[in-house]
């Protein structure tokens, strides 16, 4: 059982709107403070997505662009993890959407003019629903780092964009996952928008050899936490007390 209200969003762990080192934020950041209020039914409810929207290759970016006809180019990786809320509860049946560049660091998008070539066998989007324990998995290729016009010689670290739904519209979150050991993480102004190093570290997926497959793919683990709900004392009381 849960109380209805969402826990207030802790802005200390979130990036500010204005982070001048990330230049586009300068003109796209509100100058007035946010209006902070308790959540209402609008934020406490949210869209429901059923298994009928998910096809068998939707979470397999190596195969889904050609519908299994040819494999994408690149280093094969499994990305997996658990979606939970701030109270540690699994979030089951939640929609996760991802998008990423190809192995050369190029997006299949009209606005990406980087000269690394498109891969005819790679699109770069995937989606899935978490299972009953909040777990998810995607098969994909490791995206390449890429240059971007934020300043001289600016490069994005290798990353996968994640879009997450919980059960409530107020839990909506978009973030990016990085790869353990990438030296570009510490140079990136988008990463540095997050004020707390511990929260940056939580966006870095760890190599997980327990889920790597011999002669096939490596694995990375990325766990994600969405906003939780206020709990009553009753449900928090340890058993027997």
């Amino acid at each position, binding site marked *: 059982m849960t109380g209805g209200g*969402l826990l207030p*969003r802790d*802005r200390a*762990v*979130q*990036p500010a*709107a204005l*982070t001048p080192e990330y*230049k586009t*934020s300068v*003109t*796209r*950041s*509100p*100058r*007035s403070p946010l*209006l*902070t*209020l*308790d959540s*209402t*039914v*609008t*934020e406490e*409810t949210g*869209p*429901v997505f059923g298994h009928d*929207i998910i*096809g068998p290759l*939707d979470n397999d970016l190596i195969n889904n662009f050609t*519908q299994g006809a040819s494999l994408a180019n690149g280093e094969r990786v499994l990305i997996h993890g658990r979606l939970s809320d*701030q*109270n*540690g509860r699994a979030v089951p049946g939640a929609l996760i959407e991802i*998008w990423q560049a190809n192995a050369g660091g190029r997006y*299949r998008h*009209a*606005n*990406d003019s980087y000269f690394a070539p498109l891969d005819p066998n790679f*699109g*770069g*989007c995937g*989606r899935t629903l978490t299972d009953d324990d909040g777990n998810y998995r995607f098969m994909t290729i490791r995206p390449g780092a890429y240059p971007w016009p934020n300043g001289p010689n600016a490069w994005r670290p290798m990353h996968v964009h994640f*879009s997450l739904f919980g059960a409530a*519209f*107020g839990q909506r*979150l*978009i*973030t*990016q996952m990085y790869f353990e050991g990438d030296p570009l993480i510490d140079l990136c102004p988008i*990463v540095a928008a997050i004020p*707390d190093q511990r*929260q*940056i570290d*939580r*966006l870095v997926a760890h190599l997980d050899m327990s889920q790597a497959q011999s002669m096939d793919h490596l694995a990375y683990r990325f766990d994600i*936490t*969405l906003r939780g709900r206020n*709990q009553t004392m009753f449900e*928090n009381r340890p058993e027997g007390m």
Partner: protein
Amino acid sequence: MARRPDPDPETASQTAGPYVHIGCLPSVAGFHAVFDGDLGASPIIEGAKGDVITVEGKIFDGYGDPLLDGMIETWQADAKGLYAGQAGADPKVPGFGRRATDAETGAFSFRTIRPGAAKGQAPHIAFWIVARGINIGLLTRLYFPEDNHSDDPILSRIETAERAKTLIAAKIGDAAYRFDIRLQGDGETVFLDM
């Protein structure tokens, strides 16, 4: 005494970036083969109860230029003020919509039904905005100009009428509304943390 354990921190947000369409609106990015269409293509299904309306608008940055690479999500109640998943809600109102701002003009538009009043609030549609340069999604609301807003818990908390006006759509036709969003500067929209 049972002590409430500290909750875990929420995962940090990062910008959706300029290529958000690939993941969230793949047909806008030119992907037609991967999925069966885009999610949130319409907040209503044919047969939804209520008055059909259209909403259009643009999102402006601090220079007054429209965003050409943004994404909007909307979440709304049915004609009786009930949200999908609540007991008695209209099954023809999934309530969730997604739109890209047009790559050339910045305009977005969608067709829906006018929501009813949800529990103690004036009728409204929640908007969530992400784009390149936005580090964490921006939440706001569209209210309707012909409604009485005096008891609404959000509008009544906004200190100046000038600011509150930024959440009220303009009526531009019998059943047509315009809702422009200003990220920064003159007429800056009120954004919510709730």
